[in-house]
């Protein structure tokens, strides 16, 4: 999907350097690596949210940067992103936030009508129920906890039913049990629909036990790309050399408080550093 792709920011910082990564339909890949390695940038390139400064991107058999605007929009409706800090307006209700997953597929009149009365309450509830959040349907996003908000972000993508699911640290605000559960929900959904799933994860053990293929990223380059059975302890220690002797796992990983994005959220550019 990515062929020799590089991304250099306007300020001269190179976030990714000639990265090549191919995935077949239905594959499930975990991206791991230390903070600042370029995991988020990689996912944003895969989501057609960033344009590479070098190399070629091909998503779902198409080059997004050679398309007309309507075609690109059509392509984007087939890609779903779970964000680390769910970009949900604090005053929006959970049901509306989940239904917003299909805005790209809905005609404008339906988007408008759904603001007056939610048009697919059952659908939103089914997506939330998979994450044990069915009872939060009509709560406002600023009235639920950070962990719940992060799972609402997951539910939105489940409701969107994209062919390519990109998850950027989707469980960073969840405790180990819930984190594992949420990741399994994503995997099961991808498997059931034959969708491709690429998830960046901070917890190495979660990645190794749940995903068949692991991509290690360090300093904007791909350090290794192996089936999870072939990832050795020494490879991992080398990958995380900058972060000390201990590998980040579910048990010891630092919890990022996920909360509704506010004005202080880092700019997309700043986050890649």
């Amino acid at each position, binding site marked *: 999907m990515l062929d020799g792709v590089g991304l250099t920011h306007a300020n001269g910082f190179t976030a990714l350097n000639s990265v090549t990564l191919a995935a077949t339909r239905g594959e499930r890949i975990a991206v791991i690596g230390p903070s600042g390695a370029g995991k988020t940038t990689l996912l944003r390139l895969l989501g057609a949210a960033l344009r590479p400064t070098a190399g070629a991107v091909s998503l779902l058999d198409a080059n997004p940067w050679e398309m007309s605007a309507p075609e690109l929009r059509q392509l984007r409706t087939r890609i779903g992103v779970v964000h680390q800090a769910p*970009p949900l307006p604090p005053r929006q209700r959970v049901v509306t936030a989940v239904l*917003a997953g299909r*805005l790209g597929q809905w005609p404008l009149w339906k988007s408008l009508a759904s603001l007056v009365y939610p048009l697919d309450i059952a659908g939103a509830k089914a997506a939330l129920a998979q994450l044990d959040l069915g*009872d939060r349907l*009509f709560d406002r996003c600023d009235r639920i906890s950070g962990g719940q908000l992060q799972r609402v972000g997951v539910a939105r993508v489940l409701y969107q039913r994209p062919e390519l699911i990109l998850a950027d640290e989707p469980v960073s605000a969840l405790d180990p049990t819930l984190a594992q559960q949420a990741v399994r929900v994503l995997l099961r959904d991808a498997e059931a629909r034959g969708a491709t799933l690429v998830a960046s994860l901070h917890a190495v053990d979660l990645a190794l036990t749940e995903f068949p293929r692991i991509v290690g990223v360090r300093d904007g380059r791909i350090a290794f790309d192996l089936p999870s059975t072939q990832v050795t302890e020494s490879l991992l220690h080398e990958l995380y050399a900058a972060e000390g002797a201990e590998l980040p796992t579910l048990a010891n990983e630092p919890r990022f408080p996920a909360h509704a*994005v506010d004005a202080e959220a880092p700019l997309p550019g700043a986050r890649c550093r």
Partner: protein
Amino acid sequence: MSAAHSLPVSLRDPAARGRVTALLLACIVLWPLLVVAEFKPGALFDAQNLKVTGNFLAAFLPPETGHEFLGYLGRATLETLAIATAGIALAMLLAVPLALLSTRVLNVADIGPGPGQGRAALLHHALRALLTVLRGVPELVWALVFVRVFGLGPAAGVLALGLTYGGMLAKVYAEILESGDTRPARGILEAGGGRVQAMLYGLLPGSAQELTSYTVYRWECAVRASVVMGFVGAGGLGQLMDQAMKMLNGGEASTILLTFLALVLAADLFSGFLRRQVGNAGTHGRVAGVGAGSAAFIGLLGSAVAASFSYLDLGLAALFSRESAGLIGDFLRSFFPPDLSSGWLSKVAYGTVETLAISAVGTLLAVVGGFALALPASGRYGSIALQGARFVLNALRSVPELVWATLTALSVGLGPFAGVLALALHTSGVLGRLFAEALQNAPPPPRDALLDAGARPAAAFLYGTLPEVTPQLIAYTLYRWEMNIRMAAILGFVGAGGLGQLLYFELSLFHYAQASTVIAAMLALSIAVDAASAAIRRRML
């Protein structure tokens, strides 16, 4: 969340019933408001009205540039600025002692409580009541009344500004003093210091910047107000505009409007500059006492005030002669007792309802118009649309409501609908600018995430941006509505309905007893709005 499993959630939106009720209620309230405000958009397109307006607007081009007229214009502009400056100086003269006396934090008797507490509380409440009356009566009403005493000219304008703004400044000064850290002042009082000493050493250091900043902001408002007061004969640009409108001289009117635009924008910029200066002041503590720069600045301010008074040649000394004092006393006595006959009271009550309706419908229209202009002004449709929309917004808000009312009265005839349109036009400019800022400051991630998932820009705006800014938009709208209620009360001076029209009419017939009832109604309305908005703000915080 484990307890949640037992709670079944219905598949029906629990908020739906509330929404439907709110919608129905809004329709039920809005309908009579539209009727009272004589909302007839058709009047805009009435052939006769279109012709009059068209002819008048056609005469706008070219703007009048005759030498003689420009001379008048220059003098009127100077006069407007001088009225504002002298008015603010007078207001401060009034406000400083009133604020000192009425603020609670400087009250020695509260310590303990000590001796004289009852007397102090009485003084406090009496002063607060006086301040409410001073600022509750719009400056235009004071001006109208003073014109009867001092005759046409700037003296009435300066005094009117002094009284209304004095009341406002005193109230806000007292609030600023009370909102800061009051312990230093308390310490000085407890150590036997006096009111003024506690103020200078305990409160001023913490609040000087805010006090100055607010005063400068008020000066900016005074410039706009003094433009308007000319319409009741209190000198300055307004008087010139009034004459041009009465003679349907489009060329002169357009030159005056352009001058308004320039003056208001310049006052905006200058006041912003002054406030930044105040913000930076005192950050390099190298000089003991007042530095050379500050001294020069204070000197400049002082001479500006002195120049304003001498330019206007107010003859205020006459105020203090026994003869004129007697005249004023007689004049004031003629307002009492107010006419409280039931027939007149019901007329005033209807005028009050009409005023409320004008303000509500005008503000609603402005929300629609302001929002429509805020979309391009926030940069959604490229930079050309942005510049264009900004220019329209600036033009709309730099023309005061009362001036708009003279224009709209021409195009839809006299009556409340002219007032509705005037409020809507000016307020669209104000709200549009505030809305655009809110939209620009809305955090982008929610919208961007939706765009990245293939949502249309319109849908991404509705689901990602609008929910972020709605509370802010509502707060701005309520705040403007509050101001518009006061404004609607005086728009009638140029024939745009409401209480103002009643007052203007009765005053021109020298029916002072009736006029005094209307003034009392305006005062009551203003106090009610004050209390309501304070209550709403308390609930929102």
